[in-house]
C-alpha cells in the first residue's frame, strides 16, 4: 500500500505563511473544493437537494458560508463548493450522493491554490493586483479576476480578509505577485 505524502501547491510539506507589514498571506491546504453545475432543466431539483444537504447555492458574484459546506457562484447555474479537507477529502463523491443526477460534479480541490489574505485594510493591496473595486463590494462578494496575467477567484470575507483561489501550477508566481504588491504598498 502506498502512503503518498502530499505537497502543497508551493511545493512544501506544510502550508506557507508570509507576512509583510500589516499583511499576512496564508496558504490553505485544508479546503476541499468541487464544482457543482446544474444539469439542463434540473435547477429546481438541484436547489431542493442542495437545501436538504446543506449546500448553499448563492446568487451570482456571491459567496455563502456554511458548515460544513460553503459555496460561491462561478458561472450560470454553477458553483464551487468548499468543505474542510480533513473530513471531506472525497468532496465530489459526497456531493454526488447528496445531489444525485441533478448536477454535474467535479473535484477541483487540487486545481487551485488558496491564499487567505489578512490586513486591517486590504484595499491598497488589491488595487495594485486586480480590477476589483474592493471597498465598494459587499462582504461575501466573489468574483473572478486577473492578477498579473493569472485568472483567480477573489472572495471578500471582509475589508480585512479575503481568499484568493489561483491556478495551482502558478502558485509561486501568484504568491510572488502578492508579495511584490505588498512591498510596493507597505
Amino acid at each position: 500500500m502506498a502512503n503518498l505524502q502530499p505537497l502543497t501547491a508551493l511545493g512544501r510539506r506544510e502550508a506557507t505563511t508570509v507576512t509583510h507589514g500589516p499583511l499576512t498571506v496564508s496558504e490553505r491546504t485544508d479546503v476541499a473544493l468541487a464544482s457543482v453545475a446544474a444539469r439542463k432543466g434540473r435547477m429546481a431539483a438541484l436547489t431542493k437537494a442542495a437545501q436538504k444537504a446543506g449546500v448553499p447555492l448563492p446568487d451570482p458574484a456571491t459567496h455563502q458560508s456554511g458548515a460544513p459546506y460553503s459555496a460561491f457562484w462561478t458561472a450560470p447555474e454553477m458553483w464551487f463548493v468548499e468543505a474542510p479537507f480533513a473530513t471531506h477529502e472525497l468532496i465530489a463523491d459526497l456531493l454526488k450522493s447528496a445531489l444525485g443526477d441533478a448536477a454535474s460534479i467535479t473535484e477541483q480541490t487540487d486545481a487551485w491554490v488558496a491564499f487567505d489574505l489578512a490586513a486591517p485594510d486590504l484595499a491598497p493591496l488589491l488595487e495594485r493586483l486586480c480590477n476589483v473595486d474592493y471597498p465598494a463590494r459587499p462582504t461575501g462578494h466573489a468574483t473572478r479576476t486577473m492578477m498579473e496575467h493569472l485568472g483567480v477567484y477573489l472572495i471578500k470575507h471582509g475589508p480585512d480578509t479575503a481568499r484568493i483561489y489561483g491556478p495551482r501550477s502558478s502558485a509561486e508566481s501568484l504568491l510572488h505577485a502578492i508579495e511584490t504588491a505588498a512591498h510596493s504598498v507597505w
Partner: protein
Amino acid sequence: MTQSHRIDGGQIDRTKTLRFTFDGLPYLGHPGDTLASALLANGVRLMGRSFKYHRPRGPISAGSEEPNAIVELRSGGRQEPNTRATVAELYDGLTANSQNRWPSLRFDAMGINDKLSTFFAAGFYYKTFMWPKSFWEKLYEPIIRRAAGLGSVTREEDPDEYDKGFLHCDLLIIGAGPTGLMAALTAGRAGKRVILADEDFRMGGRLNAETFTIGNDQGANWAAASVAELSSMPNVRLMTRTTVVGAFDHGIYSAVERVSDHLPAPAAGKPRQVLWRIYAGRAILAGGATERPIAFENNDRPGIMMAGALRAYANRWGVKVGERVAVFTNNDDGLRTAKDLQSKGVDVVAVIDSREGGELLPGIRHLQGAEVIDSSGKLGLSSITVRQTNGRSETISVNVLGVSGGWNPNVNIHSHHRSRPVYDPNIAAFVPGKDGPPGLLVAGSAAGQMSTHAALRTGRDVAIAALELNSAPDLPQAEDAPIRISPLWYVHHGKGRAWVDQQNDVTVKDVKLAKQENFTSVEHMKRYTTLGMATDQGKTSNVIGLAIMAELTGRSIPETGTTIYRPPYTPVAMGALAGRSRGREFKPFRLTPSHHWAKEQGAIFVEVGNWLRTQWVPKAGETEWRQSVDREVLATRKSVGICDVTTLGKIDIQGTDAGAFLDKVYANTFSTLAVGKCRYGLMLREDGIVFDDGTTARMGENEYVMTTTTANAVIVFRHLEFCRQCLWPEMDVQLISTTEAWAQFSVAGPNARNLLRKIVDQDISDAAFPYMGAGNITVGGLRARLFRISFSGELAYEIAVPTRYGDALLREMLAKGAEFDPILYGTEALGVMRIEKGHVAGGELNGQSPALNMGLGKMVSKKKDSIGMVLSQREGLTIEAGYRLVGVKPVDPKGKLTAGSHFLEKGAAPVAANDGGWLTSKVYSPHLGCDIALGYLKGGDRKIGQKMRIVNLLAGLDTEVEIISPHMFDPEGERLRG
C-alpha cells in the same frame, strides 16, 4: 555657485539646500524647485540645443509643454533622456546633462547646421540623396541617423521597478488648479468618491504662479486650504505627481504617478512609477490652458520665454530670469507679467503690445501697436528690435523677453476619441468640440473659461452637472477679467527665420514652403514640416502653425481645420506601461507536479507556453544533450520510462448529452464509446483544418474526460463553450477544466504494467485493463485514474492522482519499480518516440493542414454533422496530389536532417517550382540509429519508398533521403497492445 537670480517669495523651502550638477558643474537649489527653476536661479538659462539646427536654447515655459529645456537626467541604468527640466523636481544629488550637442553645450560643432539652414528647408531630404542609388544606405543615411535623435539611451537594464493598479471613482478630476479644486470640493462635500489628479507636485495650478486673491486670501493659500479640506475627506483621493495621460473607452483613463522621481532612488521595494487605470463614472477635464508664443525672427534665444512662465518663476519659485525684462503681448494677460515683475523689483524695460489702446501700467514704458521683429545675443538674449506703429525700429537692450500670444485651452484629453476642437474667436484659440469621450466634461480654462472666477464657477457647476448634485457650495470672490486679445500669430517682417516649433526647428518659412508645394492640408503640413511632432507634441506650436497656414491660404482657421491630439498627454516611460511584466516575470510560470523532483535531479527545463517542462534529465557523465535523450528513449523502450504529462489539457464533460456533444465537436464518433474506454479524437475547425487532437475517455454513462494538446488547452475549452452556449444551447452538457487538478504521468515501456502493478490497487492485466481502457482506480487507497493509452508506441498507461500527491506518486513509482530501472524522460525523448511512431503534434498540427494530409482523412465521419465536416470537403483541401504526411530517413545513416528543410527531387534546382514540401519535425532515433523526420510531401502517400533530397538552403544542407511510412517504429502496434 550662488543663486544669483533668487528673489524673495515663492513656495520653496529655503531652510533646506539641495546640491545638484548640470553638465558637471555644481549648483544649489531648494526643495520645491524644478531643475529649470534652480538653474535659472543660478543664472543658467542655456539648457539645450535644438534638433536640426542645434540652436542654443533655454526654457520657454514652466511646465510640461516645454520644447527646449530637455536634458539627460541621472546616469547609469537610470539615465533618462529628453527629460523636461521644467518639471523635473529637484532632489539632493541630482545630476543632469545637456544633450544633442558635441563637444559641449556652449560650443556645439553641429551648430554648423544653423549656418547652412537654407539647405535644410522643410522636406529637403525627399528631393535629394537619390543618386547614386547605393549612396543613400552607405553614406547619406548613416550620417543622418547619427545626427538625428536627441537624448541617448543607456544599454543597461533599468534598475527601477514599476507597478500598476486600478482605481474606481464617481468622479475623476484632471487638474488641481482653481477649477479642479472647486470641482473636487463640490463633489467631495457631497460625499462622492472623487479622485483629483495633477501632474504637478503641488496642487493649485496657476494659483501658485499668480498673485491673484481668492476671497480674502492669496490664491495659493486658498489652494492649500482647499487641499487640506479635501485631504480630510475619506471619499477623496488626492494624487499629486500624477498625469492623466489617456482617455479610453467607457470612462477608463490611464494615469502615471511618479512615486519616486523626486528621490535620488526609489525606497526598497517601492516602484519608480505606477500606471493607474482609473475607472471613472464621470470625469472633468480641468487641465487649464497653455500660453503660446508669437513667431518673430530669432524668437528662440535663451531668455525669450512665455510671459506667464516668467510670472511662475518669480511668484512660485522666487526666481528672476534676468535683470532687464521686456514683454511682448497681444493680450491683457501679458501685462500681468510686467505688473508682477515690477512689483518684485525687476526692471521692466518695456511692454510691446501689438494692440492699440490697451491698459497702460504706471512706471512702465508701453509701445502699443508695436511688434518685436528680431532679437540678438549669443547663447542668450541681449537685445530685441521693436518696430513701432510709425514704422520706426528701435533696439532695446534686455536679457529677458516675456511673450504672450494668448492661451490655448488644454483640450488634449478631450480629443483622445478623435473629437476635433473648435475655434473660438473670442479667445483666439481652440476649445473642446463635440463628441468627446462620453462622460468627460470640461471646465475652467480648458473649456475656454479663462478668469479665476469662471474657473471656480465652471468647476463647481460642471461637478454638479456631472454627478447630478442638489446643492451648490458658495463661490469665493475671485478676479473675473475679460479676455482681451487681438490675434497675432507671427510678425510679418524680415527674411530671417521665425520659429514655430522650436524643438524640431520648424519656422514660418517652412510653413510657407509647405503652402507653396501644396501641402496645405493641416495633416500634410504637419507631416511635411514635422511641426508638432517633437517631444513636446506641439503644445505650444500646433495652433500657430495652422493659423499661419490659414493666413497664407486665405482660409479661415475653422476652414483650415486642426490636427487632433492623441494619447498620451505627455510622454510616458515604457517601464510604467509594462509594470512588473518584464525579465523573468514577463509571464507567470506554470510548474508541473514533478518540478521539484526534476529540479533536484538537475533536469533541464524548457518553456512550453507558460509551463516549464522537463526537457531531459542529465545523468552524471553526460556532456551532450543527445546522450541524455538517447538514454531516456532507449531505457523507455527497453524497460520503462515515466513522463509528466500533466500539462495536457483535461476537460471534464458531463451531462446526458455529453456523447452527442462530442459527436458535434469531434470529427469522429464518441457517443458509441463504451464506458471504461477511451478513443483518439480529432477536432477540426469549422474551415475543415485540424484544430486539435487528444484522447477522450468515457468515465461514466454521462461523463467524459477529454484531453487536449498542451498548447491548445485554453482555446479548445473556449471553443467547446462556444459550441455549448451558442450552437447547441439545449444540450445537457457541463464543462469544467481539470488540467491542474490531476497530476498525470505517462508510464511507458515493456515493464510499464509490471511497474504499475506495484502501485495500483486493482488488477491491470491486459484482460482486466485492455488497450484503450480507462477507469477510476486507487493507489494505496487514494483515488486515481488510469488510461491505457500510448503516445510512444510502447505498452503505456497514463496514471493520474490529485495533484498534491503527484510528487509522491512519481517518487513511489521510481522507488517501487526500482527493479525495472525506470527513468523519467523529458519532452525531447517524448518527441523522439512520438515521431518514431508517426503521431502528429505541434509541427504537423500547424493550423494549415486538413486531416487528409495527416493520413487521418477517414476519421472525418460524414454520417453526422460535426464542426468542420462540410468545409473539409472543399476542393483545395482534397487535392489528390496534395501534401501528405510521410516519414523520412537519410539514405546514408550519417546523413543529417533539419526540420523546416524542403523536399526536392534528385537533380532538381532549389527553386519554388520544384518545392515538394517540408520536414515538420525531426529527431535522432536511437532505435533506428539515424536522423528521422516527419514531413508534408506533395503526393507523399504515393512516394513511399522513393528517394528524394532534403535541402536546407540556410544551412547548406543537401541530404539524400528515403521516403518511408510515418509509422517508423512498430507499425503494427504490437508493443502497445502487449
